């Protein structure tokens, strides 16, 4: 294999996953071919226009533009020694994975992959997919590739660049974990300077689900205890510090309460497990409980709005800060804000989000504005649905001047609770009763 091919790595499928990993690979000094059949997407990416918002992505592009080549031509995959399938697997409304686009992509480029190349599936496949797909392609005689691997992706929306550049470990699924990795893949893996964990395909595929199960477990446990805090006058923030100092729980544990699960990845893994467990006769009642709790906590704002506002005013107006499912992303997948908006079609809604711009006329009585205070204009209540850090900088006094009502629903505690009360607001946040006065920091995840 010539040295140019040895140092060239290809990514096929340029959604969030492929965009971030291809640029992170270029940043490690490799030559990168980034390929996707979507001509318009490839043109935009070549021009540095990204369909996803991630902190640091534009800088990563500027710094490494010379080492990445965007193309629609799958024949260029022959120039690479290592090829990643990096198309994100989308989910339907019920969080079932739709693997068909990935399967079609694999089949469409299979003949362009030469016998010396190593292939890695980076997409979020379901357990059993890799071994099944490789066997099928080899049996059909359409697959000349050498070794095939599945690698767990652990990107986080809003922190994807950081996670792609600095993974805490790399989990690699192998047909057989015993032999050493082919040279191009070994070099790529070792360039990240973190532990490398080879294991069977099925173990790696389930490892990804396992990681997310522990995250869901922490989030749901926090939400459940936070709700009790709200009822008895405890403050979850105070309890959190005690938990973080427990070595069995840890300083980075997911202990911030939230509005249920959102973003799509956690929900997808719960549904995948549930489907497999149902088929195989494995107990999935815990998963069912997590899913039910997520739906219940997602409606926290809705319940408070009905209790404190909607039943007492004929034509209330609601200000909404944040539409993204979390801060630092433009993804709205399973966003609590959008679910709330869909739940109150009869209410006037004025929304602001730093990144998300919804198409006009997507929701009745809904309009989007370009700054937070404009959303508050003549509003009876303010709901802060996404913990964007810049919301902390908005003056409560200016919020008060803009609004006509005095109700703030601030699940993530973005505003100064004491000041809000001093300005005459009824103030509610997750994990604390109405009378709590403890300030809390923003979310760290």
């Amino acid at each position: 294999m010539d040295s140019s091919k040895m140092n060239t790595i290809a990514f096929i499928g340029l959604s969030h996953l492929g965009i971030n990993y291809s640029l992170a690979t270029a940043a490690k000094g490799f030559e990168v071919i980034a390929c996707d059949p979507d001509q318009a997407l490839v043109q935009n990416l070549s021009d540095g226009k990204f369909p996803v918002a991630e902190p640091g992505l534009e800088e990563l592009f500027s710094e490494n533009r010379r080492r990445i080549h965007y193309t629609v031509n799958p024949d260029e995959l022959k120039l690479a020694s290592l090829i990643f399938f990096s198309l994100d697997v989308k989910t339907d409304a019920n969080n079932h994975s739709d693997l068909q686009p990935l399967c079609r992509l694999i089949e469409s480029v299979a003949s362009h992959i030469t016998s010396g190349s190593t292939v890695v599936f980076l997409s979020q496949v379901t357990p059993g997919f890799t071994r099944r797909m490789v066997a099928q392609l080899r049996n059909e005689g359409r697959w000349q590739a050498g070794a095939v691997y599945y690698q767990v992706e652990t990107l986080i929306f809003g922190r994807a660049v950081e996670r792609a550049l600095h993974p805490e470990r790399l989990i690699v699924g192998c047909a057989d974990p015993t032999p050493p990795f082919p040279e191009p893949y070994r070099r790529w893996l070792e360039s990240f300077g973190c532990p490398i964990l080879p294991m069977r395909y099925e173990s790696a595929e389930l490892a990804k689900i396992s990681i997310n199960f522990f995250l869901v477990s922490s989030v749901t446990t926090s939400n459940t205890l936070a709700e009790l805090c709200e009822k008895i006058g405890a403050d979850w923030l105070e309890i959190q510090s005690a938990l973080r100092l427990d070595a069995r729980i840890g300083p980075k544990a997911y202990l911030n309460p939230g509005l249920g699960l959102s973003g799509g990845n956690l929900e997808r893994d719960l549904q995948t497990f549930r489907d497999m467990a149902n088929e195989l006769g494995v107990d999935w009642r815990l998963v069912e409980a997590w899913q039910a709790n997520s739906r219940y906590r997602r409606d926290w704002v809705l319940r408070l709005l009905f209790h404190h506002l909607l039943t007492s005013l004929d034509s209330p107006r609601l200000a909404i800060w944040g539409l993204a499912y979390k801060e630092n992303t433009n993804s709205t997948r399973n966003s609590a804000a959008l679910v709330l908006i869909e739940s109150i079609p009869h209410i006037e809604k004025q929304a602001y989000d730093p990144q998300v711009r919804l198409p006009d006329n997507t929701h009745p009585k809904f309009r989007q504005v370009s700054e937070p205070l404009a959303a508050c204009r003549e509003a009876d209540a303010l709901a802060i649905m996404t913990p964007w850090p810049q919301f902390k900088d908005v003056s409560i006094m200016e919020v008060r001047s803009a609004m006509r009502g005095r109700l703030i629903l601030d699940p993530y505690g973005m505003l100064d609770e004491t000041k809000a009360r001093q300005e005459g607001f009824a103030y509610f946040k997750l994990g604390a009763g109405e009378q709590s006065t403890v300030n809390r920091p923003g979310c760290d995840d």
Partner: protein
Amino acid sequence: MDSNMPQHLNKQPSKPRRVVILGSGGFIGRKLSEKLAASGIEVQGVRSSDINLCSADSAVALRAIFRPDDVVVFAAAITPDKGKDVRTFMRNLQMAENVATALEGIALSHMIYISSDAVFADDLPPITESTPADPPTIYGLMHLAREKILASVLEKTKTPSLVLRPCTIYGPGDTHDSYGPNRFLRSALGERKIKLFGQGEEKRPQLYIHDLIAILLEALLRRTTGLLNVAPGESASFGSIAQQIIRLVNNGTSVESMTRSGPVTHRHFAPSNLLRAFPRISFTPLETALHQFLRELT
């Protein structure tokens, strides 16, 4: 969104041509008849004194009443205060059998079955439409069985239907004397005494009759289909309800504690689907409702 969300077949409210109310002499039926009549909707009431739904003959009599494009509200049942035994259970099922027989081959415009939250077990997490029905009593089992019986018939005729599972209902015109606001208020006004099991620690949601009727009217106007629990999101202990009533009547009423026969159980609802389906409805606060109730009683 919850996959159990009910659907509105009428995108805009539209008055039904005629509403047949089975059980129009009961608590719910009578209030609904009054509301529909006041809203200019034709009502055909069916009282037990008109047609005994437990009798096999009733199917023929009902067939003579039902017209295609009717809306039927099934609000007839022999409630636990009139019997909790197997015979009552069977008579309630006979009603459902006779109504089902009468409905065979008739495609109605819409049907609403008034079930009960008795289909749920005690001590559950906040109850939603996804909570499995697991009735601890044969009264709850009866309602669940009637839901299924009617669904099997309505499916054949493609009749759109809605099942409502209300919690305990209170308010003026109540024909029952079940443990809760109705009985407490009457006994406070009469004997000046409210009898509580233990200290009345059990928490339950209480549904004001006018709120249920408002929801029923909305469901009729929108031809709502599916399944909905009808209960406010706040539950109150019987003890706190008794204290509210004592303050309200202000006549020296006292509380008498009785030995409870079972453990303390609680019940809470998470009514998100109801709030989404009918965003304009509201639950009357207990204190306000008790004031209204008292005015109507006195």
